[in-house]
């Protein structure tokens, strides 16, 4: 029997299956049991000298941190078991039953949304074009419309976007015309519909951008595929996602985990390799126990539009930013809201063809994390708010914990140092004497390391078991060496990230909010000067901490060495990690390889081709500054005005337009301040006057 969700046209989802309950119960029991044993044992270490406040705090921190580590370990273990259990031979990539595809005209209308914000237009439009062509190759192009949703604030980038848009529209129209000559069934229309909408005010950032689209255009579509500016998705995957969601009308969100690709720096190649090798076992495990209560990562996901509109308008948090106000990390909350309304949130871990690009340097990675950290810290309030599903609370809590873990680890280490100093550093006895507190401490350290490293071991074994997968990761030896390099790098950068995350968490809790800066998506390296400016505090902190440990508790120095080394070497590590030359050297030696490099997927080849075209467009238009061109070029001026009229959004500004026109006539539009440039570009009458004046 099914129950009805109020205001919802679909039945409330069925309860989870017994297999999933088993997975969840297993995860819960294994996590808590292992944490209980470890924490009990740790009690013998910390309370060896009696109970005091520092020891109790240390013990509590250990319990929380061990729970965190244990859930990761057991999730990966469930992933391993799932992959083994479903294998007809040994291990293989888990596949679900293929959904029979319907005729293109019967496929529900789907909008592909690419929200952008001051991005590199050539890359954005190349990615979009690749997706369009890939879907078109499947023969389902007519079922999709494509929207570029710009929140760009930089007038130059805005005009670059329009330049790329004009070229893309022209290309698609020409191809439609050419197709009509060879295909009698084709009526000469463009091969895809592409729309561009720029918001004058980017209220609520990316989530507001999507909300705005839902309100204006959502009524025309059953599904929307949300992308990021660097997303690329294979057409087959996209069409398969729509089919899956179409036959199960209670799927609210269908997420395909994205694989990072296309980067060459050492740091990026490590991330790509880790996601490719280890990601599978974690994704399968996570997907297995979350089942229909999965999560949404903010992009590369298919969303049912109507329930999203009805149930996923983000609540406003009480208080001011950073912890209050608009919700920044919208994805987890939207997943929780749609789940609360009775719809499934499914992670399609069996699908590939979902790609993104990752930050190429440690500094860029930290900048991105700073934004995410603030967003996730806002979720603390929601974890405890009434009405959310328990699994949604868990996802929100895990999001919080992924940043909170760093200050907790730091506090744990500092308290550990204090505890050793207070106890004189000798009361733990001989660390190698069985059942001494020292022995237990060493064993627990080994257990934690084992829990962190064993999932990677699983993943490498799973790669080595499959000859094709092994070859696509460079070969047997290279796959193992790659994993060892990745582990080494992780050890080196973990302390740096711990300090970064701790700073972000503390800043957020102190009420300092971060700015919304466009993510840098190019391959620029970090020079020694930049590295020093970003990491000198880490290096000095590492040296001071090392000195303190040597002075106060020399016995701990060896144990602290991995953490101290990462901090002290942070400057050269950051420079080396950002190096494209090192990344390319590794590639030449087939190290840190991913399958997308050895056997390039069709959609990524399409992206490369499209990038050649978009770069040519940018170069062709590059002879003139876009702000000069929009004033002088009659066709571009008209195109800009056409997009402005099509958008139809009223523009409000305090700029004196008449004075701005006069200034622009004298000095040129490019010489004005940004608000004046935006005001003139947003005012059709003013821009026409300027255009006429330029020619008269």
């Amino acid at each position, binding site marked *: 029997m099914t129950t009805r969700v109020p205001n919802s046209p679909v039945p409330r989802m069925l309860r989870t299956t017994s297999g999933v309950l088993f997975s969840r119960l297993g995860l819960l029991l294994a996590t808590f049991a292992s944490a209980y044993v470890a924490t009990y044992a740790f009690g013998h270490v910390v309370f060896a000298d009696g109970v*005091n406040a520092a020891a109790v705090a240390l013990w509590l921190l250990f319990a929380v941190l061990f729970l965190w580590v244990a859930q990761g370990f057991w999730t990966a273990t469930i992933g391993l078991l799932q992959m083994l259990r479903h294998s007809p031979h040994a291990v293989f990539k888990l596949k679900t039953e293929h959904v029979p595809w319907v005729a293109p005209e019967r496929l529900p209308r789907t909008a592909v949304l690419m929200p952008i914000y001051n991005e590199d237009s050539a890359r954005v439009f190349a990615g979009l074009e690749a997706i369009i062509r890939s879907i078109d190759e499947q023969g389902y192009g007519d079922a999709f419309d494509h929207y570029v949703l710009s929140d760009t604030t930089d007038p130059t980038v805005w005009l670059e976007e329009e330049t790329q848009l004009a070229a893309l529209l022209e290309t698609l129209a020409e191809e439609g015309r050419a197709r009509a000559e060879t295909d009698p069934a084709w*009526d000469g229309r463009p091969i895809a519909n592409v729309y561009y909408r720029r918001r004058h005010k980017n209220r609520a950032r990316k989530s507001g951008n999507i909300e705005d689209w839902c309100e204006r255009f959502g009524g025309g579509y059953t599904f929307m595929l949300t992308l990021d500016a660097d997303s690329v998705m294979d057409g087959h995957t996209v069409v398969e996602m729509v089919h899956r969601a179409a036959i199960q009308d209670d799927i609210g969100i269908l997420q395909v985990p994205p694989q990072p690709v296309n980067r060459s720096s050492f740091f990026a190649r490590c991330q790509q390799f880790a996601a490719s090798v280890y990601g599978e076992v974690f994704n399968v495990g996570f997907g297995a126990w979350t089942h229909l209560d999965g999560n949404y990562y903010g992009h590369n996901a298919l969303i049912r539009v109507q329930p999203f509109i009805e149930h996923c308008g983000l609540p406003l948090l009480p208080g001011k930013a950073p912890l209050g106000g608009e919700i920044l990390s919208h994805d987890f909350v939207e997943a929780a809201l749609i789940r609360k309304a009775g719809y499934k949130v499914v992670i399609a871990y069996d699908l590939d063809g979902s790609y993104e690009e990752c930050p190429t340097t440690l500094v860029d990675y930290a900048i991105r994390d700073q934004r995410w950290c603030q967003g996730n810290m806002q979720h603390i309030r929601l974890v405890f708010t009434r009405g959310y599903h328990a699994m949604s609370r868990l996802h929100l809590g895990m999001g919080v914990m992924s940043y909170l873990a760093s200050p907790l680890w730091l506090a744990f280490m500092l308290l550990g140092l204090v505890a050793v100093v207070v106890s004189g550093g000798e009361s733990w006895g001989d660390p190698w004497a069985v059942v001494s507190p020292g022995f237990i401490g060493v064993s627990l350290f080994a257990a934690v390391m084992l829990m962190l490293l064993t999932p990677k071991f699983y993943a490498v074994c799973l790669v080595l078991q499959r000859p094709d997968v092994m070859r696509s990761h460079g070969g047997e030896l290279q796959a193992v060496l790659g994993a060892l390099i990745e582990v080494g790098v992780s050890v080196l950068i973990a302390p740096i990230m711990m300090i970064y995350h701790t700073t972000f968490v503390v800043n957020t809790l102190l009420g300092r909010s971060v700015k919304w800066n466009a993510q840098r998506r190019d391959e620029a390296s970090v020079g020694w000067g930049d590295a020093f400016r970003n990491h000198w505090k880490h290096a000095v902190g590492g040296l001071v901490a090392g000195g303190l440990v040597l002075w106060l508790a020399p016995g701990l120095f060896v144990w602290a060495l991995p953490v101290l080394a990462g901090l002290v070497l942070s400057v050269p590590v950051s420079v080396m990690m950002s190096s494209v030359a090192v990344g390319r050297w590794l590639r030449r030696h087939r190290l840190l390889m991913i399958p997308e490099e050895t056997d390039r997927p069709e959609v990524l080849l399409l992206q490369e081709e499209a990038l050649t075209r978009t770069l040519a467009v940018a170069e062709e238009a590059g002879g003139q500054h876009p702000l000069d061109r929009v004033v002088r070029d009659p066709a571009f001026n*008209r195109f800009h005005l056409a997009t402005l009229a099509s958008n139809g959004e009223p523009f409000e500004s305090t700029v004196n337009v008449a004075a701005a026109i006069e200034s622009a006539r004298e000095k040129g539009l490019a010489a004005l301040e940004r608000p004046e440039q935006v005001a003139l570009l947003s005012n059709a009458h003013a821009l026409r006057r300027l255009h006429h004046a330029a020619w008269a």
Partner: protein
Amino acid sequence: MGPEVSTVSIPPKRELADVPALPAAAAPDAEQRVAAYLAALGVGAASADRVAQALGRQIDPALADPAERAAAMLESLDRWADSLPQTLGLADTDGRVAFVLATHLGPLLDRHPEAIESPDTAVEMLRELLNRYPNGLLPDWPRREMPRQPLGELPSVLTGEFWSGTYRWAIPAVDRGVRGMRGDLSPPAGTPAVAGPSGLEPPKAPDA
């Protein structure tokens, strides 16, 4: 049989790079300036002259200053372009025409320079362009409201109730527990043994 495909041949639009970096403002008269503008749009020289002359005829002859006259002619061209949706029997605001004209106004005027004075002559080509290039204009779907969801309440244990009433005993109890673990059960220095105002209760009225 598939849909009918027109065979009207439309010359390729002119390339953006063809646009001169500087306008022809130095030209001695308005018609020449407008002709230069039209050339930048991709209109051939002969047609450009013809269109410029036609536009010139629509301007008050008393307007003698070349710059002002050229500006008026360009405004006239814009008015003509803005009137085309009506000519085609479309709504005044049909933005598809504006999109098509952005890239194909030059070829249109090159083919039909007489269209400035007789817009009907360009209708067939314009319709063909609209059929072929319907892109760009944002669709007009009925607007939907996406209501902001209520935040939801926190459980009472996390709200103000926790710090008053039933749970008021919690803080001293925790304090006693911590001191108990330290082996120090004497009242902390400076703190009254009997629980006084903790500062967490709601403020009392001045006359209370």
